[in-house]
């Protein structure tokens, strides 16, 4: 008999961890196949150039080199790299697997060498001779939209990929006519490099006899890859097996179909040998998607009492050179939650997507929601300051009441459930808000720069209803009660750090009344998890977990029918509790799972028409997104002499609905905040005026480290979602979404006594110091 305490809600350590900590997990690079060949890719050192000539003769002559291939030799056999975003009138360049006659960004794949070992493949790359004719380079998206500037893709005739305009709510012009004040602001969300600890990698193996291909890839989306790869390599979906083994972090960077996945597949077929490609860190920085890079200009119509009547925004999104899977869709997500957790009656959103000679931007942790939240939460502070109202009062004034949910926003979404006041109140309590303000007053009196920042956020999770998704937003699951009474859970989501091997086992163990040790959760192999839409957009538990619950419900119903037969009663007289079927009042007999499963599979005595076995699969189609929310509060000290920002206190109250495993929730929130500490204080992807990437490795790209992370005070409120039976919302990105503005607002609050009202991200020590210097006498 298992412990009666439910597993759901327990802070359990992850069952995934021991193998990862011991170094006995299997990542793509750990795969060793007989006859494995190694691919290495030659990448462009130029941001924009015409390829005059490529000579691979010397490279091919190196002993151990099996083949060297250029764009013209490969592109005809591989389809274009897909973009799944449905953007009307999108002007898109042809995204071939290798560059054809031009390169469009530093890191653009030009040729591939395949050899018997990776050292020789690398030698071969050095021996390829390419003549480049450099062309004018486009790096600044604001310049790129002007007439007469150079073109990223001359054949498109413009740098503008698309324009997207949405107006929502009441009439925006009326809102601005009624305004007492119009406040204008400009905000830049800098380009970031996701930098998962494991770079990308792929191994392809072709079975010529069967015509089947297996691709192991460090991806978040094995199922979407299985859907999209056939169009590139000509192997049918049902002859294609995709395996995402251990994946060392994704953060959206592996929510993509990359040229290299098609390339190694093609090479494995072409050479009839398994081929491995493992990305180097430099390649990862240059040739795996970047995030953010949106410039926004805003106008806000307000009344004298701070009431917000409407917002107009104009965003320029730097897409980079090509559309990856969701590239042009990400800035439109920004528009979806621009009103944050506020009642803002009118919005007008204009987005211009622009091509530049850089790596593509795409979904990076939060994808659009961090951008939107940063904007609205900075603007709330700007409005509060400009209109002389309290920043918390301003926020409270615009919150919908908890009774107003489901709440329709002027951006066109319907927020499922919420109690924004509750989260704000709790965060204030945990932070000791009034005390913090006293500390600030004392610090200011002593000449110290101490600031307190707040952000209240709502975000979009559980992606999502299929109607709103590019390729289906349902999720699939399968649960099998094995003959032994052990439970196998198979999910179509593809966890790569989220911990669903643990949290789904908690759900299954509770619902089936079995010990958690008896549950195994399988994922990430399309031959095992036959269908799925994978892991992104904080969808795993809310959508994938629900599919598991549906399977369990089916199994329990079927088991009850069999139990009724065995107990010689009817199903409505069968009780199921703690993994045991009984019929009190009818018989004292109790049937545990192992006995029942044995009966179901051995099948000697089944009711008439009863199918043997105890297995169920389900597709769950959510009716809406979920909308987690919360309040983050941050206190910082700014060093006047150096501009260095030190986070003194960090409080986060997040509401993701009921928590399956609070330890996993806390881990997600902590990691998310760490991402934002990097983004606000030091991280940035830098290209110079020639399109050269200056942050191509960890020597130059500043990642947050353990010593940058303060001790967090984490709290939560629980507002269930009506969208799924677990009531869960999702928490994978909330930390990042809520914290960027909280930290930025704290820094600017610290600098307020000096009259500093704005700083671009990242607020590096030098940027802060320069701002201080212009407003104070230089001090040493």
């Amino acid at each position, binding site marked *: 008999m298992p412990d009666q305490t439910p597993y759901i809600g327990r802070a359990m350590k992850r069952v995934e961890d021991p193998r990862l900590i011991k170094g006995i997990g299997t990542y793509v690079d750990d795969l060793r196949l007989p006859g494995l060949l190694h691919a290495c890719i030659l990448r462009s050192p130029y941001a924009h150039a015409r390829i005059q000539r490529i000579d691979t003769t010397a490279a091919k002559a190196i002993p151990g080199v099996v083949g060297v291939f250029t764009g013209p030799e490969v592109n005809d056999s591989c389809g274009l790299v897909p973009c799944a975003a449905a953007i009307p009138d999108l002007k898109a360049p042809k995204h071939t697997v290798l560059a054809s006659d031009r390169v469009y960004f530093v890191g653009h794949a030009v040729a591939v060498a395949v050899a018997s070992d990776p*050292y020789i493949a690398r030698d071969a790359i050095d021996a390829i001779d390419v003549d480049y004719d450099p062309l004018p380079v486009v790096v600044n998206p604001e310049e790129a939209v002007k007439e007469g500037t150079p073109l990223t893709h001359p054949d498109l005739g413009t740098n503008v990929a698309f324009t997207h305009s949405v107006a929502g709510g009441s009439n925006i012009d009326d809102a601005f006519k009624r305004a007492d004040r119009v406040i204008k602001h400009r905000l830049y969300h800098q380009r970031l490099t996701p930098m998962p600890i494991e770079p990308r990698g792929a191994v392809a193996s072709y079975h010529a006899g069967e015509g089947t291909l297996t691709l192991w890839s460090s991806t978040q989306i094995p199922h979407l890859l299985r859907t999209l790869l056939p169009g590139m390599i000509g192997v049918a979906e049902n002859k294609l097996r995709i395996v995402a083994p251990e994946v060392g972090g994704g953060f959206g960077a592996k929510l993509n179909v990359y040229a290299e996945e098609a390339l190694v597949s093609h090479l494995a077929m072409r050479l009839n040998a398994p081929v491995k490609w493992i990305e180097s860190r430099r390649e990862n920085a240059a040739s795996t998607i970047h995030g953010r890079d949106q410039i926004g200009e805003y106008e806000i119509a307000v009344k004298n009492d701070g009431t917000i009547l409407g917002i107009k925004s104009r965003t320029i999104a730097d897409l980079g050179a090509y559309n990856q899977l969701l590239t042009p869709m990400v800035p439109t997500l920004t528009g979806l939650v621009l009103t944050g957790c506020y009642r803002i009656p009118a919005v007008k959103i204009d987005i211009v997507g622009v091509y530049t000679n850089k790596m593509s931007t795409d979904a990076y942790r939060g994808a659009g929601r961090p951008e939107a939240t940063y904007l609205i939460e900075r603007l709330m502070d700007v409005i509060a300051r400009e209109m002389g109202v309290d920043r918390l009062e301003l926020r409270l004034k615009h919150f919908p009441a908890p009774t107003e949910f489901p709440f329709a926003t002027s951006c066109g979404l319907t927020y499922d459930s919420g109690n924004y006041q509750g989260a704000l109140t709790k965060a204030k309590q945990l932070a000791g808000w009034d005390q913090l303000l006293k500390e600030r007053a004392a610090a200011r009196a002593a000449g110290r720069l101490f600031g307190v920042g707040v952000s209240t956020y709502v975000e979009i999770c559980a992606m999502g209803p299929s109607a709103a998704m590019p390729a289906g937003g349902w999720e699939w699951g399968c649960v099998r009660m094995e003959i032994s009474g052990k439970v196998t859970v198979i999910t179509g989501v593809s966890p790569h750090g989220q911990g669903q091997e643990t949290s789904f086992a908690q759900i299954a163990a509770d619902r089936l009344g079995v010990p958690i040790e008896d549950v195994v959760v399988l994922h990430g192999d399309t031959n095992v998890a036959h269908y799925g839409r994978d892991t992104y957009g904080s969808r795993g538990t809310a959508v994938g977990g629900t599919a598991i619950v549906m399977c369990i419900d089916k199994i329990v119903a079927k088991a009850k029918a069999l139990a009724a037969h065995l107990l010689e009663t009817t199903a409505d007289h069968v009780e199921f509790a703690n993994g045991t079927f009984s019929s009190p009042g009818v018989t004292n007999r109790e049937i545990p799972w192992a006995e029942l499963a044995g009966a179901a599979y051995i099948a000697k005595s089944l009711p008439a028409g009863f199918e043997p076995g105890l297995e169920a699969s389900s597709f769950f189609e959510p009716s809406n997104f979920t909308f987690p929310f919360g309040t983050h509060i941050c206190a910082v000290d700014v060093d006047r002499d150096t501009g260095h920002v030190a986070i003194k206190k960090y409080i986060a109250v997040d509401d993701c609905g009921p928590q399956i495993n609070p330890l996993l929730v806390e881990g997600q929130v902590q990691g998310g905040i760490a991402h934002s500490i990097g983004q606000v204080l030091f991280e940035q992807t830098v290209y110079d005026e020639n399109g050269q990437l200056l942050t191509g490795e960890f020597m130059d790209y500043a990642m947050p480290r353990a010593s940058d992370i303060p001790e967090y005070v984490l709290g939560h409120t629980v507002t269930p979602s009506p969208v799924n039976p677990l009531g869960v919302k999702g928490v994978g990105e909330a930390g990042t979404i809520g914290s960027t503005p909280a930290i930025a607002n704290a820094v600017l609050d610290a600098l307020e006594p000096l009259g500093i009202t704005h700083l671009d991200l990242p607020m590096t020590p030098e940027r802060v110091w320069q701002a201080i210097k212009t407003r104070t006498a230089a001090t040493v």
Partner: protein
Amino acid sequence: MYPANFDYKRPATVDEAVALLAQHGDAAKLLAGGHSLIPAMKLRLAQPKVVVDIGRISTLSYIREAGGKLAIGAMTTHQEIAASRLLQDKCPLLPETASHIGDVQVRNKGTIGGSLAHADPAADYPATILALDAEIEVAGPNGRRTIRAGDFFVDLLQTAIAANELITEIRVPVTAKTVAYVKTEQKASGFALAGVAAVISPSGVRVGVTGIAAKAYRATGVEQALKGQMTANAIALAATHAADGVEPLSDIHASAEYRAHLAQVNTRRALERAVSRG
């Protein structure tokens, strides 16, 4: 990620190492802790034909007091220096500096000789070596010779060591506790954007600065301006000379202006801290 082909030699003695350098000339590179050479080789920025690994020359790893000075073998790791009771007691600036280098893994492998020979303009030791007026002993075909710290750093990644020589020992003086190393890190790499080492002794003040310019330097302007005055005002005033006469580097991590400013701030802070330890 994958270096070019190279031969690997592992001498057991200094004489063998010197002989290998003589034999292979410019084609050879010495491998000490490997924290500069190996990353450069993996990126193929360095492609030595012969790597001479001096990591197993056991006679190059020691910390001892000799002749009124402290002698440190070139292959002594940063961690050994940071943890040395002898140094903490008699030359605390060196362990303080070593504790600022990289992280624990780097400090466990990286060596003082390797770091000095590489002469990265943003390494930590150079500031301290200059402020301590240390001596660097090198071995070559003609035996051993000593280079004064002030003569050691020639330019960006260039030292007074000849191609056929290797560092064998670093000698530093016994000092009082009135020393300090104050560093602002380059956020990505952890190297010094501005590292200032200060030594206050009865005979005067010495200030070494790293990270600011193409090579580390003695802030003689600061030393002269102090004229033995160690009041807060005198220190603040003197610190304004911390970047006098140098051409600060400028890159995405810090402008020349900010580097010069950090040199001044950290000089003041290092001097204040050193004074406070008296």
